[in-house]
């Protein structure tokens, strides 16, 4: 039962965490996330890092597609721009990772603005195709601009470093990825309780009346593209540091679709949706593999039957969620919360 959260000031009323219960739960979650690498196996730690990177990129795409209503198939391309920026800077300069990641974000944002230019004229599927063209074009640059990108073979890079510390292991990378993911989510949360975020949502819901209410469409659409690709660029940079090798095949078109699916399955226009979607899309295929391994002792032929089935089961799960939970995984969480808000007086 939720009680005692009456507020005296508007500032307290518009805070992110409006009750002590929420603050305590969030602190516990944060503590658990910090303790995770000390207890997890190396495999789980590896997955944790991947989820963290995916959360940043999915949140970026959620800002663009979920909140501003602009469908983009360019997310993998923007991540590639970030990854190649970090790779080049780490091989040609001695800059520490905060600088290289910032540069990755900014360059990706600049590319994002260029790619977003058609969005004033086209929207919906047409915009998806326009961004698809951009991602093909970026892929071409990654593959052909050999002096900078290393061509088809790509390039390996130096580990991330800061103040003499080197971040080689997954364990060390986790402590870069986690704070950045938290920061990315906090910034997005702030955005959507202020003027700029409201303008994004207004453009998604009714672009014509948004314009008549005083929102210049092109400016805000490009701002959304820039921010979304900034997130993608940082995520791509982390990806490069994490794998320490970047090739054009690191960022295929299917990755853009992966992120679009993450946002849709998780819940469009909902920050929690981006998190849940990214985790779902990253972990479910792994969980299915794990399931196969568990079944093998009982059913020796499991790998033979299951390995071709994995993709099909994964696809069926996505379709199932779309049909039974069209508002995404975040909606399930919202229902659970509502239950406990009224519990035990009503259930």
């Amino acid at each position: 039962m939720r009680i005692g959260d009456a507020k005296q000031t508007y500032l307290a009323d518009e805070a992110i965490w409006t009750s002590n219960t929420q603050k305590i739960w969030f602190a516990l979650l944060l503590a658990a996330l910090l303790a995770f690498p000390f207890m997890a196996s190396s495999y789980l730690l590896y997955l944790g890092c991947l989820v963290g990177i995916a959360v940043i990129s999915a949140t970026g795409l959620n800002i663009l597609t979920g909140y501003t209503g602009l469908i983009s198939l360019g997310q993998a391309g923007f991540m590639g721009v970030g990854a190649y920026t970090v790779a080049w800077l780490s091989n040609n300069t001695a800059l520490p990772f905060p600088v290289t990641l910032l540069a990755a974000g900014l360059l990706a944002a600049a590319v994002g603005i260029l790619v977003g230019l058609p969005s004033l004229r086209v929207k919906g599927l047409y915009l998806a195709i326009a961004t698809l063209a951009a991602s093909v074009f970026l892929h071409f640059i990654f593959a052909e601009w050999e002096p900078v990108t290393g061509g088809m073979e790509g390039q390996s890079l130096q580990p991330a470093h800061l103040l003499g510390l080197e971040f080689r292991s997954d364990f060390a990378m986790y402590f870069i990825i986690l704070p950045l993911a938290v920061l990315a989510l906090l910034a997005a949360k702030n955005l959507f309780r202020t003027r700029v975020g409201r303008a994004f949502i207004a453009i998604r819901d009714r672009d014509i009346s948004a314009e008549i209410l005083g929102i210049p469409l092109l400016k805000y659409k490009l701002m959304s593209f820039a921010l979304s690709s900034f997130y993608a660029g940082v995520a791509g940079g982390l990806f490069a540091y994490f794998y320490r090798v970047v090739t054009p095949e690191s960022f295929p078109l299917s990755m853009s679709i992966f992120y679009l699916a993450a946002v849709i399955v998780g819940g469009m226009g909902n920050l929690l949706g981006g998190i849940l979607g990214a985790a779902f899309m990253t972990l479910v295929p792994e969980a299915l593999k794990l399931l196969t391994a568990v079944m093998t002792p009982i059913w020796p032929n499991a790998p033979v039957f299951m390995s071709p089935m994995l993709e099909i089961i994964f696809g069926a799960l996505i379709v199932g969620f779309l049909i039974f939970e069209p508002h995404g995984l975040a909606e399930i969480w919202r229902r659970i919360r509502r239950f406990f808000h009224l519990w035990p007086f009503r259930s």
Partner: protein
Amino acid sequence: MSILEISQLSLSFGGVHALQDVSFQVPRDTITTVIGPNGAGKTSLFNCISGFYKPQEGEIRYQGQPLKGVKPPKRAAMGLARTFQNIALFRGMTVLDNIKLGAHVHMKTGLLSSLAYFGRARREEMEIREEVERRIIDFLEIDHIRRHPVASLPYGLQKRVELARALAMRPKVLMLDEPVAGMNREEKEDMARFILDIREEWDITVLMVEHDMGMVMDISDHIAVLNFGQVIAEGEPEDVQQNPEVIKAYLGNSDIDSLRKRLNPDREAA
């Protein structure tokens, strides 16, 4: 002194003449209403004033300044606010956020400040919240629904929220496109009271399109009648009511008695 002067405005889509040589004035601090049968060009006129349509000929002057070439967002910042015929609220936002959005042009917070929610962003958000709460939510009696998503509200309340959002734009001219369409009698009376109060207390000129003749005649100071894209009459409610052109436009025949006879031959015979 007129706050809005429309002169010789013509708008056509291909061969369809939505507006032809439309001229009329909106005197400052009045409630001016545009009436006319369906398809007369009332909403097209609003769209020209908002800057959504670009008229081929004529001009619109706002506070003496021609509006030609001024983009819609700029017009909003200059003090031209409006509501829409078929409610254009942002369905994914709460009532409070919808109203705050109206104040967009009066805020300056940029992207970086927004992301950090620090300094200007926080200060401006608090200022706007206070203004919205004190002046608008209280005035329109919608404090009980401020946290509701707009999509869940009944029609009459949605119209009221749309009015609230327009007021948050701090307008000098408030354009209302059918503010009481589809409302029941009580909701209509509330809305009429709000519109009168807005003119009296807020120092706002109201330009309205409405079909409900009872309300139009009751609260308007000035009426312009459009038919087939042309102004056929203009003046005070009493004058317009008596104008034979207007009666003809609405009833199709200036001879009301003969019309009545044709509609009710049996009763006449009895």
